[in-house]
């Protein structure tokens, strides 16, 4: 109840002409309402009830528009309140021993945060590792790991450290934190009109101007024909003709669009980016983690000649026992599946595990004087040679075959003997092919970006169903690819999380940074996905498109409405023009809706005009559904629904209202 009262009060506050003037269409309606109200007070030719009714419905038209905007804003406000409560008023402990209020932290300050404390501001972890509860901004209850160096070093002010201790270098300026921007965003305070909204605004203002002239010149035209038109009637005609439906809902549509993104846990740092996402032609997606599961899985064991497969499987499993990476785990599991080998049964007691290092590029286990090693092909080959053996040519053949088929080969050796090759396979996430088809239908090409060699990349690209791929990608190659597409006039979107993604994120028209990413990535992109889900881009694109479609559809509807309103109002105004004494004039023939009386017709038209606004608020907030059926089919559909529908609907609506106004109320 209170929320409704607040919304209502807010919509009355918005009647302030200084605010209304930003929306020329509705400002004209408000002026008209004021003029008619004065006309009612002064009195004149029309009966008082008529002028008053017109004035009341004109005010309602304005208020309905304001309510629409207030409702849209209100949806973000509750969320903003939660966020605001999080804004820490804690005292930050500086590393050099001093203390500072969280609100006064400057970029470059270094603070220490212990378990149980709230991080005082946005920054980068420069020391330590900790689990952090970010549920307040992401809604995700599982804690995330934040550590110095690498791609998971960014922390957000207002989130809470659960374990351990980290040292954070502050990167935000006071009042410009991620949280501040998020609050401004959901409240709609930071909303600036997008280029497209401005263009549409100009179109609507232009239509308003021309109809203003139509109405102003109608008075002398009618005067020549001996018909006088009262002020209330003229203003009614004006308000009916100008595009009030879209004028009233335009800003609500924009706010609701941003809100829909926020609900999907995406923060767009500008409305322009949301609109641009509707225009995206090319989508760059990282292979790992986006198209494929982050980890490769062992899929096949290829023993060397003279090695029993079971023997090889056992060795591979043993070499992987201490390997906690998903790849290692998958080898253990595969050996178990294929040969029923159980971990405890094979684990010797005096085993000494050799961990993986970047220098050796292999790991393994030593026991009973036997040394097992598994690792990259060339590293294992070198090991065998160093041990005094030689790798059989079949080893290289097997590794080449695996690479050709899009997998990653892993060689296993016992002392100086090559045992075989483990086929690690990239597993494409379920449902990706369908998603890319969906994107293609939307007119978007997907390009997979991967560090793999071209052979492997081509294989996975084919399996996943992407349109193209960039293999052996470096950050520079990625940037160059984006620029190349942009030079051809395409709009490019990409997701990224690493610091080395930052230049590409900044260059892309739509750059979605993962919230788990580095601070550099989050600042370079123009959207942040709090769920860190790279395929979210599809939803972002849909929201962007919906935003434009909703505006276009309601504009078309609004303009198409005018035809019926003419048929209602003009025959009413000219019912007695050039009439023979005691009869209706020739233009009364145009009263095709058979509306009860001239005044009832005019009142019905503006009542319809006003009521259609609240009726369309749900559509404005929800957005017109987007279907990826191709542009021409979509246009045909929307033309039918909103164009033809906009022609017909008011005929029905006005007639129904007239039945009430004329027959029941006796107007």
């Amino acid at each position, binding site marked *: 109840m209170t929320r409704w009262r607040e919304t209502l009060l807010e919509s009355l506050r918005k009647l302030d002409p200084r605010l209304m003037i930003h929306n020329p269409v509705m400002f004209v309606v408000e002026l008209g309402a004021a003029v008619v109200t004065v006309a009612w007070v002064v009195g004149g030719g029309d009966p008082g009830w008529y002028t008053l009714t017109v004035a009341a419905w004109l005010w309602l038209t304005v208020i309905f528009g304001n309510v629409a905007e207030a409702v849209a804003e209100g949806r973000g406000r509750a969320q903003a309140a939660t966020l605001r409560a999080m804004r820490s008023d804690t005292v930050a402990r500086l590393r050099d021993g001093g203390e500072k209020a969280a609100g006064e932290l400057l970029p470059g300050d270094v603070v220490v945060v212990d378990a149980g404390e709230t991080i005082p501001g946005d920054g980068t972890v420069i020391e330590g590792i900790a689990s952090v509860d970010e549920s307040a901004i992401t809604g995700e209850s599982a804690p995330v790991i934040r550590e110095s160096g690498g791609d998971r070093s960014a922390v957000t002010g207002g989130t809470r450290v659960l374990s351990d201790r980290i040292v954070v270098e502050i990167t935000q300026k006071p009042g410009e934190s991620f949280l501040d921007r998020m609050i401004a965003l959901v409240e709609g305070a930071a909303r600036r009109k997008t280029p497209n909204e401005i263009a549409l605004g100009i179109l609507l203002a232009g239509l308003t101007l021309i109809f203003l002239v139509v109405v102003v010149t109608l008075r002398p035209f009618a005067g020549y*024909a001996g018909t006088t038109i009262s002020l209330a009637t003229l203003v009614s005609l004006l308000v009916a003709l100008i595009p009030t439906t879209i004028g009233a809902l335009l800003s609500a549509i924009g706010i609701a669009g941003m809100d829909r993104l926020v609900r999907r846990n995406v923060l767009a740092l500008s409305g322009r980016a949301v609109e641009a996402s509707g225009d995206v032609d090319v989508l760059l997606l990282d292979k790992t983690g986006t198209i494929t599961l982050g980890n490769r899985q062992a899929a096949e064991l290829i023993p060397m000649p003279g090695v029993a497969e079971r023997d090889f499987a056992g060795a591979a499993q043993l070499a992987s026992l201490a390997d906690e990476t998903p790849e290692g785990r998958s080898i253990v599991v595969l050996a178990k599946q294929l040969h029923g080998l159980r971990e405890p049964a094979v684990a010797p007691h005096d085993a000494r595990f050799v961990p993986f290092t970047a220098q050796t590029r292999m790991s393994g286990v030593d026991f009973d004087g036997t040394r097992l090693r598994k690792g990259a092909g060339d590293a294992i080959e070198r090991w065998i040679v160093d041990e005094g053996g030689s790798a059989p040519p079949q080893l290289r053949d097997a590794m080449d075959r695996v690479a050709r088929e899009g997998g990653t080969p892993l060689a296993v050796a016992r002392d100086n003997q090559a045992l075989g090759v483990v086929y690690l396979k990239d597993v494409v996430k379920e449902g990706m092919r369908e998603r890319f088809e969906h994107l293609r239908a939307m007119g978007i090409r997907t390009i997979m970006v991967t560090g793999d060699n071209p052979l492997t990349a081509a294989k996975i690209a084919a399996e996943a169903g992407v349109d193209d791929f960039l293999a052996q990608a470096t950050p520079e190659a990625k940037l160059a690819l984006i620029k190349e597409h942009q030079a051809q006039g395409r709009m490019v979107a990409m997701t990224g999380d690493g610091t080395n993604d930052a230049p590409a994120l900044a260059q892309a028209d739509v750059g979605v940074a993962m919230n788990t990413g580095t601070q550099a990535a989050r600042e370079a992109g123009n959207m942040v996905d709090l769920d860190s889900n790279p395929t979210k881009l599809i939803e972002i694109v849909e929201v962007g*498109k919906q935003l434009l479609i909703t*505006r276009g559809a309601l504009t078309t509807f609004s303009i198409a409405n005018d035809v019926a309103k003419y048929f209602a109002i003009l025959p009413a105004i000219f019912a007695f*023009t050039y009439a023979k004494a005691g009869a209706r004039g020739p233009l009364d023939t145009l009263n095709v809706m058979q509306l009860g009386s001239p005044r009832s017709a005019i009142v019905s038209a503006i009542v319809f005009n006003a009521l259609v606004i609240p009726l369309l608020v749900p559509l404005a907030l929800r957005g017109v559904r987007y279907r990826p059926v191709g*542009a021409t089919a979509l246009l045909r559909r*929307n033309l039918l629904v909103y164009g033809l529908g906009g022609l017909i609907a008011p005929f029905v609506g006005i007639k129904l209202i007239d039945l009430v106004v004329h027959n029941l109320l006796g107007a």
Partner: protein
Amino acid sequence: MTAQGWLQLAVFLGLIVAVTPLLGGYMARVFTGERVLLARVLGPVERGFYRLLRVDPAHEHDWKAYARAVLAFSLVSWLGLYAILQLQGHLPFNPAGFGPAPWDVTFNTTSSYVTNTNWQYYGGETTLSNFSQMAGLAVQNFASAAVGIAVVVAVIRGFAARSVATLGNFWVDLTRTLLYVLLPIAFVAALVLVSQGVVQSLAAAHHGIVVGPVASQEAIKLLGTNGGGFYNVNSAMPFENPTAFSNLVEMLLIVCIPAALTATFGRMVGSRRQGWAVFAGMLALFAVAVAIVFVAEGHGSPAQHLAGVAGGNMEGKEVRFGIADSSLFAAITTVTSCGAVNAAMQSLTGFGGALPMASMMTGEVVFGGVGSGLASMLLFVLLAVFLAGLMVGRTPEYLGKKIGVREVKLTMAGTLAVPLLVLATTAVAIATRAGKASLSVHGPQGFSETLYAYTSQANNNGSAFAGYSGFVQPHPPGNAGASGIAFADLLGSGAMLAGRFLPLLAVLAVAGALAGRRVAPAGPGTMRTDTPTFVVLLVGTILLVALLTFVPALLLGPVVQGLAGRTF
């Protein structure tokens, strides 16, 4: 409404469809600088022109320089024509010894011809010398038409531009239009008209029958969608339009260039389908307009029904042409900005007269004036693209170029300027005593006359509900004792000048803005602008945006007359 009548209409539509790609393709070659056959003969003349004007044909203008050249050329044309008309008493080829018309009438006439309007408050044969007609009006018929074509060519270049921001060289476009398009066609057409009996003579009047250089002026009057006839009654006069064949030739001459420019557009932007789509929108609106006029005229007028006269409305029509050809001509002359007539427009029935008005009120985009028609149509295309683009969920783009804030702003300015002008000037004229002085009758017909006059002038059409006057000539022929109605003359001049140059500047600016835009390749998500769906949208946009503005005004004029079932 005879079968023969409908057949005539169908044949004519077929002829337009046939001529469009031929002439359009030819013009595309002319304007992309390809060598055409005529260049062998006229090439030296062309190069001589450039030397004379000190123009470097390779130097291209941006939109502002192009617009400046257009305005400068038009200003010089205006001053030259005004001088000729005012000084005609001292100039040769004046067999009847006419003095100048009143200054305000000349002001109107000059503005009228320089803006390709050819609104005529004067009667040609009773007011102007042969020199004024030939060296003054006929020259402007060529010049103003060439300006219109040059501008649209520049606009097309802006739409088609891939990386340059320039729109071409105005002086080159003007010269090539005149030498390779207007002069040769007009030359041949004049000979064809002479073969049918159109007069071409410099002799004095025989027994009160005025003759003159009619055929040469007639050809360009139609070809350049100018419309100002040698004789006051225009193409209804047997010396201007003697036979059914000459009538057909004249109608084709009016439509051929405006229609063919759509094909020129298609070729120059690299997609003929785009040209055909625009053409289809125009043709659809045109066919409907013709059909309605034809049906309305075939139905007859209330006055004749009251008098018990059966059949269609023959008042004000030449029996040589009948209802079908008169309806067709009336529609052609108003959808294009020509304004030549072969029947009395003010005698059309209510609805028959509403359609020519409505055709002009679209902003002369259904074929429209030579050049100016397609240019204004492209503004509507942008408007339709903007609406449609939103409805498919992409920032609207046309021919791969995004429609931004600047384009929308200029498009709105360009499409709204003329309707605003029409409404404002009509209101001033109908509400003031000075304005009412021009009326010949009162009641709805008086309103129709006024509305028609300012619609016609602001849209640079030039046809008229002829009762509306701005020139009082007590002793015709000759201008002795004549006076102008300064209010109507000057208000009309203002409407013509603003109606010509405001949209022209807007569309050049749009082209300038688009020229520099990157071209995005089309994909499945791109809204196509060469499909029937888009044509429907385009037609709908024109009807809703342009015509809605005029519905109240039309109700009070022709519609009330059409519905009344009585005379006023």
